[in-house]
């Protein structure tokens, strides 16, 4: 892996059945980078992101990461019985984080529904809860799959701010997107 890179995927390939989704894709992210993975539905953006996150084995190529990363997938990782506060508390315990839960809930605009079970939350509020995990623990690399999905205009602006703040603090973000988003990428990878 090159000096300063937080993640590097070289010559990655994916095959689904007999269909080649992509081959020889290389991605490297350094501090401050915002790399967008673009492509039509079914082009393999999520597969590539999962390979980079180590959740899926690439059919070819190699992935190297520096330290731990945050992952936000299509699904939010929430249980129906959890509240935003209990969800964040659970993962804070798992990660050994001592972050101020009230502050984080306030930051992502979940103060009011903080103790409402997730089954009663809107899709946007669930997405905000998942995004709040990014603030639980400082990790330099964020891997986000369609992170703007279900967010309203305020939510999208909030996430764009979070991404900018993270980059300015030396972090890097890789995000799979198929639509427009209020962020400006340093680089795009099209599948």
């Amino acid at each position, binding site marked *: 892996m090159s000096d300063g890179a937080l993640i590097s995927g070289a010559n990655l390939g994916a095959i689904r059945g007999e269909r080649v989704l992509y081959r020889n894709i290389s991605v490297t992210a350094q501090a401050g980078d915002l790399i967008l993975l673009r492509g039509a539905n079914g082009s393999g953006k999520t597969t590539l992101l999962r390979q980079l996150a*180590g*959740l899926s084995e690439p059919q070819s190529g190699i992935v190297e990461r520096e330290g731990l*990363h945050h*992952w936000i*997938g*299509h699904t939010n990782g929430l249980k129906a019985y959890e509240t935003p506060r209990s969800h964040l508390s659970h993962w804070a*315990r798992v990660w050994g984080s001592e972050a101020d839960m009230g502050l984080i809930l306030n930051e992502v605009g979940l103060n009011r529904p903080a103790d409402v079970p997730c089954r009663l939350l809107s899709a946007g509020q669930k997405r905000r809860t998942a995004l709040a995990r990014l603030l639980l623990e400082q990790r330099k690399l964020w891997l986000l799959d369609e992170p703007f999905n279900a967010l309203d205009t305020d939510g999208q602006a909030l996430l764009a701010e979070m991404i900018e703040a993270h980059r300015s603090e030396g972090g890097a973000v890789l995000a799979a997107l198929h639509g427009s988003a209020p962020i400006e990428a340093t680089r795009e990878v099209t599948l």
Partner: protein
Amino acid sequence: MSPSPLLSAFRSSLSEAWANGAGLLLPLGFFTGTATLVPFALGPEAELLSRVGPGVLWLALALSSMVTLERVFQADLQDGALDLWLQDIGSISLVAAIKTLTHWLVSGFPLVLLTPLIGFGLGVPTEKMVPAMLGYAMGGLVFFLWGGVAAALSASVARAGLLIALLALPLYVPALIFGVQMVEAGFDSPSFLFLSASTLFALGVAPAAMGAALRLAAE
């Protein structure tokens, strides 16, 4: 790996079981129902019931263990929690083991406590009750562990109940045989040692198998 992720997995599994509410009682209901129907099917002859009682309880235990296994890992796969566990936890196998043991604690262990009540009804002799209870505790653990492997292997399959049964039931056989023999022969018998060995083997192997199966399911 520090203990805090494992404690959190335990707490989260308990919360999940609690949130399932009446679902928790399904194995208990199944176990009690199966065992209490037997005297009606075989007749009230005490000698016959006393002879088949321990075996019937073992069968009821084996089948009850599978009633709620389907959702143990499937929910985590569907809601994305499995990805979160996989992303940075050193050993998904340990987390899977904790989830399965918690499941046994809330759904399997109460069956052991019910044994005297149902055992007396089936005419199981008093002196055999303690070996029976210990046997059910150990055998139940084996059933839940192998059942957990089957549940992990079928986590990505919709309506996986039948598949879980097909995968798990053959693995139940050694514990079932040694368990029934142990109730008859007591603690001094080789069956007790074989049942202990089966339990230790399942404790050693099943978590690794569950971990590998869950990694595969997340692919």
